[in-house]
Every structure is written in C-alpha cells, then in structure tokens.
C-alpha cells in the first residue's frame, strides 16, 4: 500500500513543516513585536519556472551540483580543482601541470542575492568583485573563472573587469570559449560516486540520417566505487545526446526530437554531462524502487478498487500506460512528448488525440511521438574505449 504510506508520510512532513513555520513565526513575532499586516498577492494559475540560462540551469541541476564535493577541470596547460568549504564557500586552486599553485579563486556567500568573488595571485593584491545577477556559482564555473582570469593575467592590471556572459574578463578583451579549452572534467559526489567527461574525436552513425560522421564528442562516465554504472555522449556538431545506464535507461535526444519542446534550452558542457549522468542514475534508481514498492502488497479488492478509482495521474514521467518500457530506448520518446504537451498553450492532454481539429500543435507532438516509436528501435549505443 505505497500510496497510503506516502500520503501519511507527506501529511506528517507537512504538519512538521507547518509546526516549524508556526514556531519560527511565533519566535520572530515574540522578538520583534507585532508587524503590520500585508495583503497577499494572488497568482493566476501556477507560474512557470524561470527559463534555463547559461548562468542558471534550474533548481534540479543546482540541487544536484550543490552535492558535488570536488570538481577538477583539466586544461591543456593547467589544472583547476574546486571544492566546497564547510561554511558553504567555493574555493578553486589553479595549478600548472606539475602541481605548482598559480592562482586561487573563492566565492564567499554574503546573502541570498550577493556573493563576493576573490581572485588571488601569489605576490599580488587580492581582487574582489560582486557576483553578476542571475549567475548561480558552481564548482565547475569557479574552475573556468579561475582559468580564464589566469589566462587574462596580463590584462588584469591595466583596467576594470567586465562580464562577458558568465565570465569576468578585462574590459574589452577578445571573447574566449573556456569550455572548449577544457579537455577533461572530473567530479566527486558523496557515496563513492565519481563522474568523468573527456573530449575526443570519433566516428559514429549519425542520429539524423544514419551516415558515418566524424567529429568531436564528449564522453561522460559515472562510476560508483570505481565500477561504471552508465555513460553518455554529447555530439556538438549534431546537437545529439545519447546515454546508456544498463538496467535503468537508454536513449538519445537530438534537435529533431526536442523540436516540439522548444529545442535545447542550453548548450551541454562537461559539467552538465556529469550532472545529467548523476540525474539519470539517481532518478531512475528512485523510480525503479518506487515502482517495485508500489507493486507489492494490496489485496485483490484493493487492486480492483484501483481500477475504479485510478491512482495513476493522466500524465506521469515516462511512458504512461507503458511503464514496462520506461527503461528502454522508447523512454525519451515519451518524455519528449510530455514536454511537448506541456509547452503548448493551453497544454495538451490525452483528449488531444481525438480532438485533432482543436490544435495542430498537439497533433505535431503526437506525430513526433509516433515517429519516435516507429524509428527509435534503430538506435544503437556505441561505447568508446
């Protein structure tokens, strides 16, 4: 009886949170005295989450990234290692290939909106700057920023700094793609998880037309206690991302499959691949354990009752009504279809299949998912050494 337990647990958590909030509210009131009442602003419907940007990749991404203990980015001429201090600050150390420290870079949290960025070069005065609005610092970003400032070292003394996208640069400096300078990114999570992304040049069958294509590829691997649990590949020229986590999930998405959902909201980089791999492993493992526990228990009456009053929502993550295939290559077809349905205004639903005259946008989503199911079987995930 997974649902009643989950409901009871949710109720307990809700009551605890409510009691905690009431207690803290009372404490504040007792300390500060009565505060003037303010009207509550009403919202029409549920607001959509803020769009993903290069500086802010969304709540789920940053929640997973905040668990990273250490991130190491290897460049052709330097190695940057970032870690979280016990008080929540981020500290990056940039060394040469022999391990000699060259610069340090720290992010000090001042409050929810403000961070102080400190750049230290041995023998020189530390430079302080404020974080750009809309940028959520990550360990990988700290590594890139430290490396970029080190590369800009000759221009740092000459004048002011400016923000070029997500990086602080000397004002007027020529644009630089630090991400493409990185050759490998390693991350460590608690629980024995490690992620590695390396950049290579390889040949594979194109996801668009099946022809042999040679180009750069970022290969990401996730390991637990040294044993690989899954891998993924990002082909920048094709804008295709493929993954394989045996027993959990396998599939790919490319521009064509994401078209209905608005395309790629960001350009995947090494840090994103490592975080996405962790998300694949964690969320699919969680989904599997929930499926296993919800399938147990409950007598015939409860199960028959479930048919009359359905427990399942009309639109769940994965393949609704086909969850048996959730770990197969068809899963991305279903998730892309769900995204496509959600992106429409008004959102599409199961009735959009027979109300085809209402909205061609829903029909486009439906056509895409049928095409994806019809052609998805042709995909083969090639592992690279």
């Amino acid at each position: 009886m997974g649902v009643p337990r989950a409901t009871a647990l949710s109720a307990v958590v809700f009551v605890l949170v409510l009691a905690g909030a009431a207690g803290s509210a009372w404490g504040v009131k007792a300390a500060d005295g009565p505060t003037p009442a303010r009207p509550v602003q009403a919202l029409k419907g549920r607001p959509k989450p803020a769009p993903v940007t290069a500086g802010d990749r969304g709540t789920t991404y940053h929640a997973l990234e905040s668990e990273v203990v250490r991130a190491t980015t290897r460049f052709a001429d330097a190695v940057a290692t970032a870690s979280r201090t016990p008080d929540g600050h981020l500290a990056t150390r940039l060394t040469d290939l022999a391990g000699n420290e060259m610069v340090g870079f720290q992010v000090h949290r001042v409050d929810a909106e403000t961070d102080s960025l400190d750049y230290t070069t041995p023998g020189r005065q530390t430079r302080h700057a404020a974080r750009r609005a809309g940028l959520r610092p990550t360990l990988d970003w700290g590594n890139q920023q430290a490396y970029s400032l080190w590369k800009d070292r000759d221009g740092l003394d000459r004048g002011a700094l400016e923000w070029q996208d997500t990086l602080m640069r000397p004002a007027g400096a020529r644009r630089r793609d630090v991400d493409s300078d990185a050759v490998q990114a390693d991350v460590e999570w608690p629980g024995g998880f490690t992620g590695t992304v390396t950049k290579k040049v390889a040949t594979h069958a194109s996801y668009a037309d099946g022809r042999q294509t040679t180009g750069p590829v970022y290969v990401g691997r996730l390991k637990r206690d040294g044993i690989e649990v899954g891998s993924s590949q990002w082909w920048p020229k094709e804008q295709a991302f493929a993954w394989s986590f045996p027993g959990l999930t396998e599939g790919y998405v490319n521009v064509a499959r994401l078209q209905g959902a608005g395309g790629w909201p960001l350009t995947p980089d090494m840090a994103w691949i490592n975080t996405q791999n962790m998300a694949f492993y964690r969320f699919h493992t969680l989904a599997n354990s929930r499926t296993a526990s919800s399938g147990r228990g409950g007598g015939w009456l409860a199960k028959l009752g479930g048919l009359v009053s359905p427990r399942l929502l009309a639109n769940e993550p994965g393949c609704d009504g086909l969850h048996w295939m959730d770990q197969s290559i068809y899963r991305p077809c279903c998730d892309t279809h769900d995204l496509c349905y959600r992106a429409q205004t008004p959102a599409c639903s199961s009735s959009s299949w027979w109300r085809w005259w209402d909205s061609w946008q829903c029909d486009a989503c439906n056509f895409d998912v049928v095409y994806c199911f019809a052609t998805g079987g042709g995909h083969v995930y090639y592992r690279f050494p």
Partner: protein
Amino acid sequence: MPLLVGAVVAASLQGVAGWWLNSGRGVAVTLAGVFACAVLFAWRGGGSRRRAAALWVGVMAGLAACLVATGPGTIWPIVLVVSAGLTAVTTLAGTRIGGLLHHRRGARP
C-alpha cells in the same frame, strides 16, 4: 463465447498487477492468461481463425475498457497498438498450439 471470455479474462487480470503494460509481471500474467484461453478454445473446438479473432477482439475490448477506466495516458493510441500487437501474437501462438493438440486428440485411435 470466445469474445466474452476474452473480455472478462483480460479485464479481470488487470486486477492482479494493475494495468498490464506498466510492469513486467503484468505483461507476463496477462499474456499467460490470453495464451491459456487461446489454447483452451483451439483445443476444444479446433484452431479456427474466426474463433481466434473473436477471442482477440474480446481481449482488446476488455483491455481498452480498463485503460479508459484507469485513465488513458498521453500516448494511449500507442499503448493500444502495443497491446493489440502483443495480444495478437499470443492469441495466434496459443491457437496454433491448441489446434495441434486438437488434431492429435482427433487422430488418437
């Protein structure tokens, strides 16, 4: 008769493990039930295609009714196509084996 039995068996098997295509156990239980029905009908009355078709239509009717009752998801036409394919192959296999058993029984002295 096969149409009615197919509908009732398919619908009642959904009570065992929920909607059958949501889990491997559901797929195994439902296909085993459909297969057993197909073998039984063909063994008793011969492996006629008409009887097999009636059984399959009944099974699909029962499954479709259950899908509507549990709430059709966002890809329900694909779910029905997958259901139709799997149950059709199982019904044909069961009918074939049941037909062979029927002939063997008829040929016995």
